[in-house]
């Protein structure tokens, strides 16, 4: 044995912890930059409420969270550690491989297109596992955040009829730091079922016609099936017939509010009759741009319009 020991300066206590928790199989990954404060992860109810609120934020909000679809297959593609052997035959690890996972999800073309918009982006990722634990890390301010990872979504190929592998859209998550992934790992237990974790759909606004300041607007989901757009009218005709759920802006930066005086459901067109303030509209010059949109998702949700975010239309006044 050496005559001098510096062991007090190495490692840490390694006593066993009863009922310690391990990562389970991933069920859903959630992308996004929300930092959950200690109050927001103090208990599972607070965390769940904060997470759902973050999922329901509008695009462009830095705290918005995007839940991907349920994972059907997981492949651990973590790079193997690089080992080396000294001339005397002592083998050691020279470089630690960083965690990489490829998740198979079963989705349609529309959702796949949306998911691929994250390609080559470095995004904080929270992994919701099959034990309903939400895994991420603690940041320097003791907030619970996702672990930074590079995302790549590979499209589903044509099925070959033989292998289930051709049925998946593949989501590759390459974690940037083993320290973040392992050493700073933290989790929040939840009571969620996976169906609680659903993202929003874009509700595209389309002008059908107009007469002066009165616009007929369809609210649709743009389907990859040409001619197969899905109209939200049947689901939300009553709720969206409300001036409080729409907004309009004008001006060079499309930031000057333009009053909407009423919104009425038009059953014949399966659209909404949106009336802008007559006087304010008349004051706009020809060629003026008007942005028409639904209110933010939290406002919509409060009015029982769940799961959609307005995709605005920009109108040019004739």
């Amino acid at each position: 044995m050496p005559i001098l020991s510096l062991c007090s300066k190495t490692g840490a206590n390694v006593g066993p912890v009863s009922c310690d928790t391990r990562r389970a199989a991933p069920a859903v990954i959630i992308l996004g930059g929300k930092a959950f404060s200690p109050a927001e992860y103090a208990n599972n109810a607070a965390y769940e409420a904060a997470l759902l609120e973050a999922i329901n934020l509008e695009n462009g909000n830095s705290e918005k969270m995007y839940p991907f679809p349920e994972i059907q297959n997981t492949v651990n593609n973590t790079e193997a550690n690089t080992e080396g052997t000294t001339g005397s035959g002592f083998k050691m690890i020279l470089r630690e491989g960083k965690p990489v996972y490829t998740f198979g999800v079963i989705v349609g073309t529309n959702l796949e297109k949306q998911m691929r918009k994250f390609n080559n982006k470095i995004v904080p990722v929270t992994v919701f596992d099959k034990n309903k634990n939400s895994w991420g890390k603690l940041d320097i301010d003791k907030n619970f955040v996702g672990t930074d990872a590079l995302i790549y979504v590979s499209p589903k190929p044509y099925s070959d009829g033989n292998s289930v592998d051709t049925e998946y859209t593949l989501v590759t998550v390459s974690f940037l730091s083993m320290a973040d992934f392992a050493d700073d790992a933290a989790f929040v237990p939840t009571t969620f079922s996976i169906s609680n974790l659903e993202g929003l759909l874009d509700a595209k606004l389309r002008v059908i016609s107009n007469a002066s300041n009165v616009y007929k607007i369809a609210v649709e989901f743009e389907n990859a099936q040409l001619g197969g757009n899905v109209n939200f009218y049947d689901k939300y005709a009553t709720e969206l017939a409300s001036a409080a759920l729409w907004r309009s802006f004008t001006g060079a930066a499309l930031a000057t509010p333009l009053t909407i005086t009423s919104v009425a459901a038009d059953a014949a067109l399966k659209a909404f009759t949106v009336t802008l303030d007559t006087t304010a509209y008349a004051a706009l010059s020809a060629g003026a741009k008007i942005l028409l949109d639904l209110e933010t998702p939290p406002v919509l949700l409060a009015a029982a319009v769940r799961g959609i975010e307005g995709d605005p239309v920009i109108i040019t006044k004739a």
Partner: protein
Amino acid sequence: MKFNHVGFNGAWASTKTVDEFIREQSHVGLTEDELRHAHALIVKKYGDNTGDAKKVSKTRPGVADRPGFGINKATDTKSE
């Protein structure tokens, strides 16, 4: 403010006389009586906010039609 299948901007409508309201909302599919009823309900909830200037306009035809007259503040777009 919801009336039948129409969601009115109550804050805006409360700044309009019933005649102005009917004139500007005549296309939404409600009868004149229904619009009168809707306006009455709006005024009941939001109050009559036509203001003194608006009352003067009753004796000075045309004033209410001047550009910018009676336009609500920006926040009104979010009000029912």
